[in-house]
């Protein structure tokens, strides 16, 4: 094999400034849809409606409260103008401050009303918002857990995590700060416009002349902001990925002197992010200035025009004062809206992604009418009947498989990578459903068993064993949450893990550190074994489960396995033939088909593939 690489474009070492280092991948599924708009797509709207529905009554109440609150707030400048126009002349005439006192009393009442209703609004909206958030968290989490492994393998854990953290937080941000600001801004603007017209139609119309300009300007801003926002999200995502991967992979970075190249890439990404941020800041600055300018011009215009109206006696000085106060109120919330627009956009995008996730159907659904196992408890007879399985239709992994494993038999699967061993295991544990045919446990189709029954009956231990935060005991107990401390210990003893666990600083109560902390791969594997043993399934599947153990540990496990497997069905996939030895029966697989089948001794005695593999293995040991 020589250089058959067909690299389009760059060769390494050249053009470090470009993004060729990222390589090519199929379309990024996380990219924002082409048209991010305030108007959500249908599925998002449906989700939103669904989430809001239980709170219909509270929302109606909320609307009532906010209207009262705003009315009270907006009334105040109007009352001030009344105070000036109606209250001052009597005093000047010497007929006492009674009118003024009444007006002041009303202002105080309005102020208190506004404060109380506002507090009520904030509390109620906070409560609704948080309840919706809780519901959303629960739904999305539960849905992810329901979705099949095939989904998770495609979707990747990183994206699951960001859906449940940053996306939910984007919505939380909107509910916490943005929502209040938006409602307030809209109501204030509408209310003010109406009031201005009521106060004086003439002057009111003049004051509202810039409105169309404002609308056009805001629309321009919104369009620009969509573009800038997307660029910011994309650039920051790259910064974060590069940062996190450099830190999690720091060992490789340092061992291979990757630092300077990394720094070069990081600087470039960081700079792109700076650029996107700068456009955002400039856009915001332009928008806010524009609003301020329009506002100031209007105030100046109203002052001039209103002043001449006062001179002509058509408008009172109080009304002019009220106008000037209202115009301030009119433009201020507009400035906030610009900042809040990003919050709205990210929440919209987040909702879009979450609703997408919630629309995914588990490819391995739970049965609607679950069937019980005969005798209520699994015995462990496994049958494959005409099973075909393919990820891609043209390239079946298993073309057609018929296999019977009697209850209690230990079966070893042998074959090269890609022969279909793991697929077989995944079908028995129903991580996948067969494309055709069926897999039966004690004569019952796996698809008709409910999850608790199936998982109690079938447990799979793989090479990658995840330890959860918590103590070692917690992690073993994961196999059976109601197990006592003694049962946990006994499981560990049976599997040969007791000794090393006792040697840990706090024994069974040692907190498992950062993803398994300072435990070696082999030690983690032993914990995983103890966990599976404690679960006590009728069918135990070991997929390369012993490969990261050293030989003494593996032998320990193998000895334990002889007892553990005595009364249950087992499927053992192993590269190491020493593990295969303990099986009652060996299946040699090749391209999805079983090519040899029999007890290990018989296969060794014959002259098939297994005999060959075995001989090679013996040779490797004795050389």
């Amino acid at each position, binding site marked *: 094999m020589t250089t058959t690489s067909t690299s389009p474009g760059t060769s390494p*070492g050249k053009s470090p400034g470009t993004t*060729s280092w990222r390589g090519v991948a199929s379309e990024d599924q996380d990219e924002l849809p082409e048209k991010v708009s305030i108007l959500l797509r249908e599925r998002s709207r449906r989700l939103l409606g669904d989430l809001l529905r239980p709170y219909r009554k509270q929302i109606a109440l909320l609307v009532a409260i906010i209207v009262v609150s705003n009315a009270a707030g907006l009334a105040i400048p109007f009352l001030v103008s009344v105070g000036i126009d109606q209250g001052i002349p009597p005093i000047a005439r010497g007929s006492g401050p009674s009118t003024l006192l009444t007006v002041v009393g009303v202002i105080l009442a309005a102020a208190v009303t506004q404060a109380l209703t506002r507090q009520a609004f904030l509390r109620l909206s906070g409560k609704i918002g948080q309840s919706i958030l809780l519901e959303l968290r629960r739904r999305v989490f539960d849905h992810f*857990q329901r979705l099949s492994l095939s989904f998770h393998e495609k979707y990747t854990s990183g994206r699951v995590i960001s859906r449940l953290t940053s996306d939910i937080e984007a919505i939380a941000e909107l509910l916490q700060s943005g929502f209040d600001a938006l409602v307030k801004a809209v109501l204030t603007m509408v209310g003010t416009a109406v009031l201005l017209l009521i106060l004086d139609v003439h002057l009111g119309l003049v004051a509202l002349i810039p409105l169309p300009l404002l609308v056009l300007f805001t629309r321009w801003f919104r369009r620009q902001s969509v573009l800038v926002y997307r660029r910011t999200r994309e650039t920051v995502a790259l910064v974060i990925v590069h940062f996190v*991967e450099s830190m999690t992979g720091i060992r490789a970075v340092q061992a291979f002197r990757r630092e300077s190249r990394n720094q070069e890439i990081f600087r470039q990404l960081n700079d792109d992010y700076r650029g996107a941020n700068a456009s955002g800041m400039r856009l915001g600055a332009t928008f806010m200035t524009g609003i301020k300018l329009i506002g100031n011009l209007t*105030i100046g215009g109203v002052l001039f025009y209103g002043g001449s109206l006062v001179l002509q006696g058509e408008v009172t000085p109080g009304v002019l004062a009220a106008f000037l106060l209202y115009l301030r109120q009119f433009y201020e919330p507009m400035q906030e809206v610009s900042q809040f627009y990003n919050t709205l956009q990210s929440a919209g995008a987040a909702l879009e992604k979450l609703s997408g996730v919630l629309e995914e159907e588990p490819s391995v659904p739970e049965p609607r009418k679950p069937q019980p196992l005969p005798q209520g408890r699994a015995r462990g007879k496994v049958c494959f009947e005409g099973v075909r399985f393919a990820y891609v239709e043209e390239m079946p992994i298993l073309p057609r498989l018929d296999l019977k494993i009697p209850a209690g038999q230990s079966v070893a699967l042998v074959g090269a990578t890609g022969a279909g061993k793991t697929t077989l295991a995944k079908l028995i544990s129903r991580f996948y459903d067969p494309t055709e045919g069926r897999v039966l446990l004690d004569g019952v189709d796996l698809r008709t068993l409910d999850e608790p029954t199936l998982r109690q009956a079938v447990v799979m231990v793989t090479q990658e064993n995840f330890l959860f935060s918590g103590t070692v005991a917690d992690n073993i107990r994961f196999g059976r949450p109601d197990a006592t401390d003694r049962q946990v210990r006994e499981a560990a003893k049976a599997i040969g893990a007791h000794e090393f666990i006792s040697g840990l600083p706090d024994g069974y109560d040692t907190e498992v550190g950062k993803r398994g902390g300072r435990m070696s791969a082999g030690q983690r594997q032993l914990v995983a074994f103890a966990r599976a043993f404690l679960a006590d399934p009728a069918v135990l599947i070991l997929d390369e489960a012993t490969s990261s153990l050293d030989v003494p540990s593996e032998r320990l496990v193998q000895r334990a396995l002889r007892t553990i497997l005595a009364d249950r069905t087992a499927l053992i996939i192993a590269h190491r033939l*020493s593990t295969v030895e303990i099986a009652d029966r060996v299946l040699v697989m090749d391209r999805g088909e079983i090519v040899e089948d029999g007890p290990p001794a018989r296969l060794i005695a014959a002259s098939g593939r297994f005999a060959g593999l*075995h001989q090679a293995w013996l040779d490797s040991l004795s050389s």
Partner: protein
Amino acid sequence: MPPDTHIPRRPLLSSNSLWRMKSYLRPYVTRLVFIWLAAIVGIGAGIALPLIIERVIDGPIAHRDSGGLLPLGLLAIGVGVVEALLILLRRWAQVKPVLGLETAIRDDLYKHLQRLPMGFHGEWQSGQLLSRATTDLSTIRRFLGFGMLFLVMNILQLATVTVLLLNKYWPLGLLVLASSVPIIWTSLRFEKRYIRISRQVQDEQGDLATLVEESALGIRTIKAFGRRHYVYDRYDDAALKVYGTSMDKARLSAKFFAFLEVIPNITLALVLLLGALAVGSGALTLGALVAFTTLMLQLVWPIASLGYILAMGQEAMTSADRLMEVMDTVPAIEGGTGTIDKPRGHLRFEGVGFRFPGADRPVLHDVWLDVSPGETVAIVGATGAGKTTLTALVPRLIDPTDGRVTIDGHDVRDLELTTLRSVVATAFEEPTLFSMSVRENLTLGRLDATEEELADAIQTAQAMFVYDLPWGLDTRIGEQGLSLSGGQRQRLALARAVLSEPRILVLDDTLSALDVETEALVEEALRHVLRDATGIVVAHRASTVLLADKVALLRDGTITHVGQHHELLAQVPEYRELLAQDADLDDASEGALR
């Protein structure tokens, strides 16, 4: 983000860390001066507008002088335009220093983190570091870029307007001044409680995030045991906690914001009352009263935001502390100055010991081992015997706590890190792939590798599958790209190590995830590579041991035996036990005879 256990709880307003960031602003001094000037003039323009209104009402309107209206109206418009322009200029000018500061600190942080050794990274989760590079940095940026400016502007505006009001009609001025006291006091108190509760929400969200992370990374295990409900319940408890605290937070701010609005309105009512009385008695003009109310309303935001900005400042200080805690960590592993012109690859461990900080027992002690140039040594030992630690000492991913490691007679600590790490390459058991092209993943630190060298390394590691990927060597792999199997990943890690053409090649159980046939092919190819290079091979299997010229048995943290494979097999029972050859053979023949 995961909960942070590293926040140093310092007294309030310890501005030290934040102050140290000022050097990042140095390149922008002229700009900053301009920004401040624009801000101050802008405040003046903002105050001028109500005063013009006063003139209009008391002048042209009171005296029915329509001629005086036009110039004042134009003046108002002029001032309005100037105010808007100043805002634009100031905000545009702010972009560079604000983002420059953030970008430069982030670059430096990244650079520093890359220099910090494994020991540091083992204790800090990447999420904690990321939150410093993003959240904390944004907090600092917001305060240094906007908060500080607003703080000074607000105080300035407050002082000017108060003086103006006092000057205009002191009883009303006094009233306004008095009304600001409860606002400031409540704001400060509120912000303190608000920060505390916000931090609690953050911590609880961190716990929630940890559970999310586990539920995603451990999905296979959860599914295998059918523990969906168990995991959900754990998550739900944490989510309910977040809900509860968030509700407390919402209640707290509801109370505060309502209070914040009621005080100015009550003051407004009182100003109107007293002001109108004063106008009636002729102590105040009508225009002055209107100006007064407008000015007063202008003060509400600066006063109210004072608390907010101070809180922001406090947060920025905490963030700066958190950032500086990392930046101040001195890299425990610094390169020396020595270089080796023509490395031969003579590796020696001289009485090496290693103990994790705070651990009772050392992982390694009194390790003596001599590996001649070109020789390959297999390290054999039980799980937890310290094999991985031993291999990490050679490229100085960690440093020994006793003794020394030498290459060609140089203590590795005296060598430049780049020199050292170009002499040594390691293929790890758990290979790290980055979300980049295959090519970039393979070349890593050796950007000058040619296509031929690349192809050779791929061939040696039996990683020809890369040519079949959709875009060949340009296919993106890793978390954000195509996912590969364990065996494929290990072969790439191996290719990566081979490509860097080291004098010393360390294989840390690199072949564990390969099937028997591939392993045989890889071993065959490795034999060629190891013929020239010095090799350290961590091995579990007899077949891997056979790559080596001699074997070192690591037991309880020290090397107890060194010798030929067959010698050790014959003489050392522990070794026999570890490689299990005899026993396995017995079993095998037993099986064959059955």
